[in-house]
């Protein structure tokens, strides 16, 4: 019975279903990158340069030029991402190409070295490139694994809502603690005063059981059961456990967000260092030619 009238909607373009950047257009860029690597390896295998395979053979220069051009183009993703110019472009396609062509640099770069390494600016550039690629791989791994955990953890709350919720609980704790004696009030005050999210990068990345002024307050308050009216105690404990839960949720949220971003702090600066080293590498090669 479910029959639509004969009417087809005109769609602008693009996929209707969700499709990750890795498998964009049925793995288009993975295929292109693999093909590129395969061709380059085959040429390397059948090429027999004199005296030995190295950067200064014809094939070596070709690989170097491809590699350098590719690196500059891959770096341009940073600008593409932020330039909201009109036009038919998809950042997802760019990311897909960035990842797969970036990975092909492992092959291109290594073949370009001809497997000659040493303590010099040339190997420095190679090492930096590998660092960039490794950090990028880490990025791909966390992009693939963490988003669903981020989503599960936050439920339908936004970060702002979580922070507001925390402030609301703090206000309630403050008013609920008014009838307490100095010792008990001090315990609550410590929870109110504490910045649960300070402590720098290590604290931000640490996972595991919470140990902070709020959990201590929960514990201490139970030991003071005799000093506090029963209904006030119940209310305070319930508020503290709510706060405990919310702080833990926020910490998980901030930790996941930090991991999703932290690799960029290696990836981007080392890319800049890589480009500097590459310039030194190219200049020195031509200087000693």
């Amino acid at each position, binding site marked *: 019975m*479910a*029959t*639509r009238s004969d009417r087809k909607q005109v769609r*602008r373009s693009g996929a209707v279903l*969700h499709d990750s950047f890795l498998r*964009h257009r049925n793995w288009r860029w993975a295929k292109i990158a693999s093909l590129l690597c395969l061709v380059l390896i085959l040429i390397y295998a059948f090429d027999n340069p004199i005296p030995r395979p190295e950067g200064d053979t014809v094939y070596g220069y070709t690989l170097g030029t491809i590699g350098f051009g590719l690196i500059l183009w891959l770096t341009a993703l940073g600008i593409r*991402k932020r330039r*909201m110019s009109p036009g038919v472009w998809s950042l997802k396609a760019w990311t897909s190409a960035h990842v797969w062509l970036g990975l092909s640099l492992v092959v291109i770069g290594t073949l370009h070295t001809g497997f000659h390494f040493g303590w010099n600016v040339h190997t420095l550039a190679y090492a930096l490139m590998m660092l960039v690629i490794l950090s990028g791989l880490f990025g791909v791994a966390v992009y693939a694994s963490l988003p*669903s955990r981020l989503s599960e953890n936050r439920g339908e709350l936004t970060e702002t809502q979580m922070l507001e919720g925390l402030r609301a609980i703090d206000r309630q704790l403050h008013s609920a603690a008014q009838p307490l004696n100095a010792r008990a009030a001090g315990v609550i005050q410590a929870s109110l005063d504490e910045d649960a999210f300070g402590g720098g990068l290590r604290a931000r990345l640490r996972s595991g059981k919470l140990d902070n002024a709020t959990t201590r307050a929960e514990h201490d308050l139970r030991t003071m059961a005799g000093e506090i009216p029963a209904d006030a105690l119940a209310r305070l404990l319930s508020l503290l456990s709510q706060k405990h839960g919310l702080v833990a949720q926020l910490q998980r949220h901030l930790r996941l967000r930090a991991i999703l971003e932290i690799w960029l702090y290696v990836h981007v600066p080392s890319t800049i260092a890589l480009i500097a080293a590459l310039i030194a590498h190219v200049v020195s090669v031509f200087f000693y030619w």
Partner: protein
Amino acid sequence: MHRVAIIGSGPAGLSAAAHAAALGLDHVLIEKTDHLSDTIYKYQKGKHVMATPAQLVLRSDLDFAAGKREVILGAWNEGTEGHKVNVLMEAEVVAVTGQAGDFTISIKGKPDVKAETIVLGIGTQGNPNRMRCPVDDNATVQYTLDDPAEYIDEHITVIGGGDAGIENALGLIADPEQRNTVTLVNIGADFPTAKDANVKLLMAAEAEGRMTVMRETNTAAIGADTITFDARDGSVTVPCNRTIARIGSAPPRAFVEACCASFEDKDGRKSVVPGTGVQFASADRISYPKLTPTFESTVPGIFVIGALAGYPLIKHCMNQGYDVIEFIAGNTALKPADEPILEQKFSGLPRGLARTDDVTGWLDYLREHVEILHDLSPLQMREFMLDSEIAAFAAGETIFRRNDPGSSLFAVAAGAVAVEVAPGTDVMIGESSIFGEVGLISGRRRGSTVRAAKPCVLLEIPRSAALKLMSQVPAVKRTIIRISTERQLLQMFGSGLTPADLADVMTHSEIKQIKAGEAILVEGDEGRDIYVVRSGSMIVEKKVGGKPIFLSYLPAGSYVGEMALIDGGTRTATVRAAIRSEVLRIDGDAFAALLQKHPALLERATRDMAARRQVNGFIEDRKADFGGAVDMYSSVANFLIENGIGEATDVLLIDEKLCVGCDNCEKACADSHEGLSRLDREAGRTYAHLHVPTSCRHCEHPHCMADCPPNAIHRGPDGEVFVDDSCIGCGNCARNCPYGVIRLDKVPPKKPGLLSWLLFGRGPGPGEPSHKWSHDNMPAGVEKPKKAIKCDMCSGIDGGPACVRACPTGAAIRVAPEEFLTVARLGAER
């Protein structure tokens, strides 16, 4: 005895009074409150008031130009004083009696006022409902709250659990330094009429002990500094220095209808004798009084102007105030201020068609030559022509194409058009008839291409104007519904049917309103009727293993129910409304007779049925293969329907298995649209990692369009619902949107370029700048009004929606619901 009494000092009444004063007419301006123009007065402080429509000239003795509320009110107060207008303040009119030349206006607590004519300019806001319980003379009871910061150290009781009451109560406790003790009183246990966000804030405030909330409580008495409640557990008296009652308001219609009416006793209640008093055009909620071209109502001597007459914009109102006084003073030859606009509209048309080639001639011509306009008054004609367009087309010219977006209604004023119902098959529509009415009802794209068959003159009526017309003139509504139903059936079934074939089916059909969630067909039930979805949408479910499995989604323009009719047997699936919908129920026997007469139609229906049976089979197969996937698909589909996707035409969906939270979508949105983001990625509902962010769904029947004073919201060429530049920033759309996707904000100043940020750190970088940055960098002396900000689907931007283009991981997509909610999706599931 005054020559004219003007009731209500809004823009219309004030302008009328000023003109009466300028002409030296004996007049009185009666105002309920202690200040002029209460509606504008109640705007928030510093609000920028717009002066639209821009092309309309202002004809008034008072000044008015776009500007701050204070400046405008100041100018009006000065003007009123300068013209020595005779104002009677704090005078609430309770009744109007008498007849032309001798009206008596009864005023609460004041002597009666006598007048020969009356001008009603009381707007549509109505009077707030008053407290019914005994109130002590010394008690402070108020029905509005202008500035919550005014009150310090008081016990304040807010009565009413609607948005107004909750917002007032929250405002009063916002600053603890004011030390107010606030109690909110609600008659029920819940707050069903209030916005969810407000209720949450209220609950939080109660939990924090900042406010007392009394539920299931009535107010028994208000004393000088106490208030007594009838609570669930008995009578309670608490201290109270001030009572703020926000218990709704009564629309002014009852008062207007009672003016000079005779009354009779009907079912024990006093009611107006039909045909007396000021009559309204229909019983419809958005109906206005019947008026002559000179604004005179059905009671001679009583004139109605302003919002109550159907003109919500300030400039219209002020012009009418001027005009009505001219008419009363005897200048009946006065042309309305909109005359130049109408002249412009009629200027390019072929000569010789209308009796005279001026505005009156054309208005008469249209009224006589277009069927749906026959019953309109000259005033209604003028008003509706202001919104509409008229143009001449050469033979062969395309009016619109199939699949074009557009929701306006066309009427053929002269000539004829050809509708291409199938390639090579044209249906002619002649003079006096209409076309394009399907868009009017469902808001979807055009169903066929229409060309001018011979030289013709066409009238294009925007959807909002057409809907207004339908509610005002019942004959228009009947005609449009009859034509549209017939055409919808013809278009849907095709197969060479003609209107004559459908005559029997049409008489055996009825239009039914279906509430969201209500079923029209139930699996296993008997029944042979066919249902056509006219507006809204339906979902089809089938019970597999005791659980309802989502089968498909039926948008407006689909039909359902043919299987039981053709194959016999019971219904094979349940069909229920995803949102409030309208269906046409066609009697099964009448339709069976039609099928028998038309083998082509039978063949067509059988073909449609086979496709549907395939879907059924597919689901059964999959169920055996991986039952989990089917369950998942089914529950996701239900989640999406619950979140309004059923009425969407295009919606942003985020796969949270891919979203890394970079907010590049929001940044892209802001940078593509004057620096303001129209979406909130993080907010919104999520189910099974599928997230519906706070972003416009471009509803089939946009709720935001419902009540836009300057009619600034339209559906654009790509199906997008957008706000144009005539937005006056009133916020009605934001309030009406059930999904909270519209906000009001000022356009921030221009940012430095991307490279100068990237290389030198200048400016705030990509995305929406902070309010602080915008404020600090706003050029001095520039005052920008707040305007409604909403998604326009990046219309006009090459490449399409920026949010999707800018998503680095493929998490963000935009889809139409029928594409997303198909079983095909099951096969493509990763």
